[in-house]
């Protein structure tokens, strides 16, 4: 099966820093792909490029085998950030925003918002003011926002980094759920989480892909020395 979303030799350079170097990866529909690596390895940059929020210095991003520019990528994917921002309005409006500008009918919007909120356990929160929620609740709203758009690609940067276990569990469940109909890419430090959630793991080190593979082999028997050290928490960066 060919990947739904892939990159060919992505290079991202700025301020004489090489953030990404010849990165070629692929993500398939129905699968969760996880990118792991130390701080500053380029995970966020890669996700942003896939989301169309950043332009690579060189290389291509392809959707279903066709080259795609950032504007196309932006409409094709949606991204959830590590710390999500809320609009200064109700939870309902926050989730509905993207649908409204997308021209979706209000009946459809109402349905989608409701089901998205249900997935993240926020039933009944529609009228609450988004900025008054706890950070865990806000992250869930962000997740619901992304889910309601029903885009083929879902990108998540450190989905549960700031969340307590209860919230984290809800988010992980939502991710598994959403992967059924999407290509999901997420970045994380949380190795058990990577093992739990994903069908494919990529190790990014200093902007390069040093190893990738299926989780069971990746975590028990990595081929690259740096991956071994990373898993043990001993990798220098």
């Amino acid at each position, binding site marked *: 099966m060919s990947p739904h979303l892939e990159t060919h030799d992505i290079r991202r350079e700025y301020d004489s820093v090489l953030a990404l170097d010849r990165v070629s990866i692929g993500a398939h529909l129905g699968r969760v792909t996880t990118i792991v690596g130390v701080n500053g390895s380029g995970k966020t940059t890669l996700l942003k490029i896939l*989301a169309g*929020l950043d332009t690579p210095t060189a290389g291509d991003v392809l959707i279903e085998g066709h080259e795609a520019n950032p504007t196309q990528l*932006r*409409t094709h994917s*949606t*991204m959830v*950030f590590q*710390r*999500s*921002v809320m*609009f*200064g309005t109700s939870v309902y409006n926050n989730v509905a*925003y*993207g649908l409204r*500008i*997308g021209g979706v009918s209000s009946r459809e919007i109402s349905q989608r918002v409701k089901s998205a909120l249900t997935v993240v356990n926020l039933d009944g929160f529609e009228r609450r003011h988004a900025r008054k929620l706890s950070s865990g609740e806000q992250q869930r709203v962000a997740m619901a*926002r992304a889910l309601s*758009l029903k885009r083929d690609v879902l990108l998540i940067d450190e989905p549960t980094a700031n969340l307590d276990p209860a919230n984290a569990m809800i988010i992980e469940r939502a991710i598994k759920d959403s992967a059924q109909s999407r290509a999901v890419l997420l970045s994380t430090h949380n190795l058990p989480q990577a093992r739990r959630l994903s069908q494919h793991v990529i190790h990014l080190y200093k902007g390069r892909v040093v190893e990738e593979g299926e989780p069971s082999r990746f975590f028990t028997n990595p081929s690259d020395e740096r991956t071994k050290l990373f898993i043990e928490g001993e990798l220098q960066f």
Partner: protein
Amino acid sequence: MHPIIEGIIQAINLILTGDPEVFSIAALSLYVSVLGTLLACTWSIPAALALALRKFQGKRILKGLFNAFIGIPTVALGLYLYLLLSRAGPLGYFQLLYTPNAIIIGQSALVTPIIVSFATGALESVDPDLRTLARTLGASDRQTYNVIIKEAFWGLVLAILAAFNRAFAELGVAMMLGGNIRGLTRVLTTAISLETARGDIALSIALSFILLGMVMSLSIAINLARKTSQ
């Protein structure tokens, strides 16, 4: 009785009995300053949007310029506009001098730097992540601007209130361009200046009470706006 105390008592009397002269002057003041501020908004808000949200050369210089002119002395501005609007001047065709419209135009020029500077600041202080968020959700440039404006709403209100305050309480422009003509261009500030020169203390005190009352209510409103914007 001491003339000042006598003046104050008479002033209160004038206000409480709704003296028509006092109130028509106050009403005219409101009229020219409200319209002047609104007029300034028509170009200042778009200018602020451009300065805050678009990228182009010389942004910093422009911002610095607007900042510099916030406190322009009203008499200086009044003088330059007078020369422009005079029948012998370039815009003399419109015969605007000594009409309320001249004051409206003058005050709109006066408050433009205030609106532009404050509004630009308010727009720039909007969390840039919000802009990114809007874009990830599919917003076009225009829709992103709407998000930012909504976010900065109370900051913009603050800018407009501050501008109105300046227009309402200024003397130089109204005097030079309006001529303080009774029943036509006599506003609170110019009337106070005249009545004081004439020695009608009671009337000038009455007018000053109204002027101060208005300015103080504006300060309260501005503070409310500032608190809400945070």
